């Protein structure tokens, strides 16, 4: 219980839990939609999802400051590509939070005359571009790790014969014999769990804006599942900070 209390004392921890619950409702609602029977359960799930979404919107007020502070920090990173990608991602996220605030003001009736669909579209686009920047950074990190692995393998080849039981070198052997890219990628990501988790989270998060913008239409079930997965990864990185990609 103490661990739960420590986790929920952080705003982000609580937000991730409710996000997971929100997307679980979306997934469950989609699963129940095709089943016959009274719609009371489906209606309750929809209402619960809407309530969680609006509550989370309220508690996101002020997060644009978080994004600006994060941008100020990432602009000092030593490597060029992560610096540009993460700074751009944080600035675009700040714009997303501004759009989100405007949508919240509309939902509580303080700004009744704004066009909701227009602001929602801008918010989705900002979220989408921010995710693309994060994925670009992840891809850069992955390619850097693959290069490192290749260099290590070359160095080992020059100093030792190729017969060995070592797990690392089995992976490197895979590369030497020009095996498919995926096993090599798997070996690399297995050694760097934070990068794997971050890439998974960003890929899962991409499903919702792709659907909303009409780029790749799916269904609420897929969006719910992806959202739930990315929330669980988020919860894991908050509960275990060493798994968060720096």
């Amino acid at each position, binding site marked *: 219980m103490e661990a739960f209390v420590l986790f929920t004392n952080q*705003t982000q921890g609580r937000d991730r839990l409710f996000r997971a619950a929100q997307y679980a409702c979306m997934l469950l609602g989609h699963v129940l939609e095709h089943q016959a029977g009274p719609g009371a359960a489906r209606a309750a799930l929809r209402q619960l999802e809407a*309530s969680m979404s609006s509550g989370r919107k309220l508690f996101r007020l002020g997060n644009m400051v978080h994004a600006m502070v994060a941008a100020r920090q990432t602009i000092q990173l030593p490597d060029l590509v992560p610096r540009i990608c993460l700074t751009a991602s944080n600035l675009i996220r700040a714009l997303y939070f501004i759009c989100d605030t405007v949508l919240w003001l509309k939902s509580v009736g303080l700004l009744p005359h704004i066009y909701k669909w227009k602001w929602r579209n801008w918010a989705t686009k900002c979220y989408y571009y921010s995710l693309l920047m994060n994925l670009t950074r992840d891809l850069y990190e992955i390619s850097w790790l693959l290069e490192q692995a290749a260099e290590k393998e070359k160095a080992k080849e020059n100093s030792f014969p190729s017969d060995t039981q070592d797990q690392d070198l089995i992976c490197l052997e895979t590369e030497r014999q020009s095996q498919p890219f995926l096993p090599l990628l798997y070996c690399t990501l297995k050694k760097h769990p934070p990068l794997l988790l971050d890439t998974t989270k960003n890929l899962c998060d991409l499903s919702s804006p792709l659907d909303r913008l009409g780029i790749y239409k799916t269904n609420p079930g897929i969006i719910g599942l992806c959202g739930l997965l990315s929330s669980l990864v988020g919860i894991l990185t908050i509960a275990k*900070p060493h798994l968060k990609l720096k």
Partner: protein
Amino acid sequence: MEAWVRFSAQSAAKERVFRAAQYACTLLGYTMQKNGASAELLARIKQLEAHMSLGRKLFRLGNSAEALEAAKRAIHLSDMVLRFCITVAHLNRAMYFACDNILWAGKTGLVPHADQEKWSQRSFRYYLFALIMNLSRDAYEIRLLMEREASGKRPKGTENGHQAQVDNGLQHLALRLRIQLRLLGHVLRSNPPLLLDLVKNACDIFIPLDKLGLYKTSPGFVGLCGLTSSILSILTIVHPQHRYRSELLKEPKKQQQSREDRFGLQASSWVGAAARKMKMLNCRERESCLYMRASGFSAVGCEAVQGETSILQKMLQQSIQPMNSLIRHQRTQLPVAAFSC
């Protein structure tokens, strides 16, 4: 901006901000109604208030666990009266949050047949009991401090005793009352955290008294009390030195001193080790090394918890200076936030 980020990272702090906003809406709505504002504007303010209330109810899900944990900790207090008051207060708070969760489930349609009025009354009753316990604790602390003050001043007060013998009964009573009030004023002035806690609880108690119909006031007064107590709570979060901790719960000075020395030594040894290692590492390894050191600092910070965090914060800030100058010397640009905890 960093201060807002650190403040809003705590869920309790953010919840207080929205509580202040909610009660500000209540106060504003009442004021505007008295001044003849339009029905549409009043409806919007009420809608905003209801939205904040529901949002806060959502975010309070799971607070019962926190209250039960606090009650579990309080049960080990040495002083019997404090142990009773604080434990019972936390248990009542846990029950209040449980009723609040049922109210939320009812409002969102999960439990559509829940009697909103009944559960609302129950939740306010538990809230009232918790506040009464908090005020009893404050009264007990004030009494102890007044006794300590009075016993400290008694050797100097012989002329007061002499005077009391001469006057008649009523004047004697008035004089004693004046002395007690002066003593109370002195105790509260020299203990600002206790005064803040007392004022906060006193403001809060008007809310359940009004909702339960025990002492009806106006929505404006309830809004003002709620807003005041929320601002005082925010103040105690932003400035933890103003959060009240009982005199009876404070560590003796010697123990405090040795803890400071221990952490001071540890912090300086970490800085030294980090500086030596940095010279040998490349850029990426430097970043992860410093992050590990920062994690180490934050682990120490978490250990100190409710006690002397302000002392630790000072020590950590002092250790950041040498690290930053080392970084500048090595021409590495690392985010300063890597050190913050």
